[in-house]
């Protein structure tokens, strides 16, 4: 690969623009309907986290670095794990054992809000996997992008706009 290869691919960027909302909406649908349809927290979280890769494909390393905050994602993952433990502890707060389903009869069978703490734990795990896998992908992308000689390490211009800003003329 040539070192001065410029990444300004309109087709890939348009496809990423179109598929990013679909991927995120599908992921959140699978998380939300985890208790009434095939799927669940883990699967939906990974689906929604694939939006990070689509963003990377379309806008490169700089787009991702300006859109997402790595540290915040890592903290949100811990919050998701704590939420799972909290919903498990609801059973203890009500006077029963850990992971007891105390809200199991709030809502009718087949509705979105049914099955009590199963749905709540499902959302917590979905949030946790979404932020965790997103953070992992960001970590890998950062590792790739900070290799010396990579197009995104700041020494090679990647878009025409950037080349105009830096005054490069090729």
């Amino acid at each position: 690969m040539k070192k001065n290869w410029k990444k300004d691919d309109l087709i890939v960027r348009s496809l990423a623009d179109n598929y990013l909302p679909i991927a995120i909406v599908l992921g959140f649908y699978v998380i939300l309907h985890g208790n009434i349809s095939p799927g669940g927290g883990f699967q939906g979280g990974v689906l929604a986290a694939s939006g990070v890769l689509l963003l990377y494909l379309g806008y490169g390393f700089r787009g991702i670095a300006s859109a997402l905050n790595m540290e915040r994602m890592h903290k949100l993952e811990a919050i998701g794990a704590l939420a799972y433990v909290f919903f498990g502890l609801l059973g203890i707060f009500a006077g029963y054992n850990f992971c007891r389903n105390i809200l199991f009869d709030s809502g009718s069978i087949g509705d979105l809000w049914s099955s009590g703490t199963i749905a709540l734990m499902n959302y917590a795990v979905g949030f946790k996997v979404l932020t965790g896998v997103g953070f992992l992908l960001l970590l890998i992308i950062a590792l790739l992008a900070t290799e010396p000689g990579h197009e995104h390490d700041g020494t090679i211009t990647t878009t025409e706009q950037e080349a105009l800003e830096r005054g490069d003329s090729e």
Partner: protein
Amino acid sequence: MKKLILALSLIVILCFGVYSVVYMQQEIPITYDGRGTDVYELQQNPGDYDVSDPEPDGVASIIVKENLEKTQAVNNVTAIVFDFRGYDTLGESFILLIAITGATVILRRRRDRWEGGK
């Protein structure tokens, strides 16, 4: 001050634990407690598992037949993962957290070059 807060929260958790021990035997449907199953006999002689019985014993038949009235979750797999085996999912999610933390530690030096995303 920190120690006082820690002690207070531990006392509160202990009170909840004692409360739960006292009120453990109430009418919420428990998912499976091994009632009516001779686990030792089943382990000694798995061929004796009676499948022709309309109400066979064991956790499998409870999961399949009494899932809706016990959990009200239409998706059976979700009911197993988050209710019957809640501890399993807890461990899995913490394994994911620990794996990501380990990857962060290993790749720390590279990540510093990014300077937090800017």
